[in-house]
């Protein structure tokens, strides 16, 4: 256990409060005292999976959806997961009372604008989860918030109803056209930027989706803050150096930066998107 303070991560033994199925996803709520107080939108939590006899020795890292600092059970943390890998499937199958080692909040959060500007928040599937607490913070600052939610099908959308309550406008896109516009977040974003005149785009998702978001933002003359959610982060604390992406620094030099500590939120115009997964020749 780490000493009390109000910044930086803590390491606690959490406890599952409940798991709720939401379309194609699962909403997992964990009692994790100390994490909510330190949370900022865009940060991560590393969860020990498999129980005490597990043969898996690395945790699984997820974007934090919501936190509740107080409550009948103590502070809670929510994550939204899609049970398509063994760790997520195990977490989705847990019951109230299951002990889960929790480390968090981890990483660099979304940078918030100093002025009340118009923002578009875009995410596909479960990757949209960290955008909801961000929307709240932005609205508190007087920003006009538009949300763009994508998914393979209607079942894969996350939080469309909630988004309608929380934001000025919601655009929905499904790849199969089952609801909303037909296409991906990347297909729909340029029109939305034009229509809203957004100055900042906040996005969470896979690298190809974020690449498209960063390009669209740049063409529109907007800033982009992109949260990497599909880069495997085996520890979440920066120790293992397995989640590196080529990132251009203020000095113009490319470094292999760790998505978990130098991110997960990075400026969209700083990532060499096409070269993610490789080590560029000039990387330092």
């Amino acid at each position, binding site marked *: 256990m*780490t000493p009390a303070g109000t910044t*930086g991560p803590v390491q606690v033994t959490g406890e599952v409060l409940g798991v709720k199925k939401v379309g194609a996803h699962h909403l997992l709520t964990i009692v994790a005292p100390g994490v909510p107080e330190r949370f900022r939108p865009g940060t991560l939590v590393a969860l020990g999976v498999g129980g005490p006899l597990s043969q898996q020795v690395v*945790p699984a890292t997820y974007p934090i959806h919501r936190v509740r600092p107080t409550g009948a059970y103590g502070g809670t943390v929510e994550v939204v997961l899609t049970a398509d890998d063994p760790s997520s499937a195990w977490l989705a199958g847990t019951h109230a009372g299951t002990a889960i080692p929790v480390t968090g909040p981890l990483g660099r959060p979304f940078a918030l604008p100093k002025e009340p500007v118009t923002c578009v928040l875009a995410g596909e599937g479960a990757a949209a989860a960290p955008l909801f607490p961000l929307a709240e913070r932005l609205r508190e600052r007087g920003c006009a918030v538009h949300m763009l939610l994508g998914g393979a099908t209607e079942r894969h959308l996350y939080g469309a109803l909630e988004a309608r309550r929380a934001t000025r406008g919601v655009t929905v896109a499904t790849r199969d056209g089952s609801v909303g516009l037909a296409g991906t977040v990347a297909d729909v974003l340029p029109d939305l930027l034009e229509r809203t005149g957004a100055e900042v785009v906040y996005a969470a998702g896979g690298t190809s989706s974020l690449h498209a978001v960063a390009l669209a933002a740049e063409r529109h003359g907007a800033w982009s803050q992109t949260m990497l959610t599909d880069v495997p982060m085996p520890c979440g604390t920066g120790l293992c150096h397995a989640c590196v992406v080529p990132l251009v620094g203020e000095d113009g030099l490319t470094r292999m930066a760790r998505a978990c500590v130098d991110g997960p939120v990075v400026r969209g115009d700083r990532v060499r998107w096409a070269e993610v997964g490789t*080590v560029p020749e000039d990387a330092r």
Partner: protein
Amino acid sequence: MTRPTADLGTDLAGVTLPSPVLTAAGCGGTGRELEPYLDLSRLGAFTTRTLTLDRRPGAPTPRLVATPGGVLSDTGGQNPGIQGFLAAELPWLAQQGVRTIVSLAGLTLAEWAELARHAGAAPGVTAVEVELSGRYAGGPSLDLEPFGAAKAVHVVRREVPRGVPVLAKLTPGSQLVDVARAVVKEGADGLVVGHGVPALAFDPVTLTPLLGGGSPSLSGPAVLPVAVRAVAEVHAALPGVPVVGAGGVRTGADALQLLLAGAAAVAVGTALLADPGAPDRIADELAGLLAEHDLTRPADAVGLGHTVLEGEHA
């Protein structure tokens, strides 16, 4: 009522450490990543990433996959280079009162000498680790044969001041004891025994290796018995040489096993990925276990398992 615990003070090759629990090379980041979870000054010592002469951007991703009871990894030796480390990382470690073991990997004897000169001249270096597997420098595995290993250690020992111990890091293998003898003869003050085990895994979907290229190695609890055996063999052959046992330590009981095999200290690596606060916990558990066995300090347990191995105990 508090449970009785042992004093964890440990001598390693003439250096006094507050605990026999160290971090392993490459697993503790720059040290700063551990700070939120650990009292770094309580740590026996912090071992740096293995440093090369020039900075290395490392291997492409993926670099790490989970395997049963461990991880298969290959970072390609990403590190800021010895000068980058000395300028940007060592001062902070020294400021925090962290005893720092600088892990080095050279490609040629000239490189070994230059690395050792830089590390040896820096204030705040507790010991130097000579990483002989070749997997970080990108050269041949020097720890597979006594001659090459001994030459590298000889060169490093010559350049590092007397009060700073030189520890040779050896991968378990058939030549282990011969290599250990050779490096000690050439001036190694101690040995780090145990390392990631060269390993491989395939993806049944793509039919290709799970980690592309490079030389992945297996670490974590799966390799603990490999490390215990290797330490026992080295201790039996060279009972007077201080050994840091490395491989899969996750609990105080794991650490005690390595001590019983003959290690004076243990290095914690992969366990940090799931539990960055592990060294404090392991030290507390070890202190409790030693006290339970009426052992007053870690040194009392070192090699104790051998009396049983040799049948001296009934």
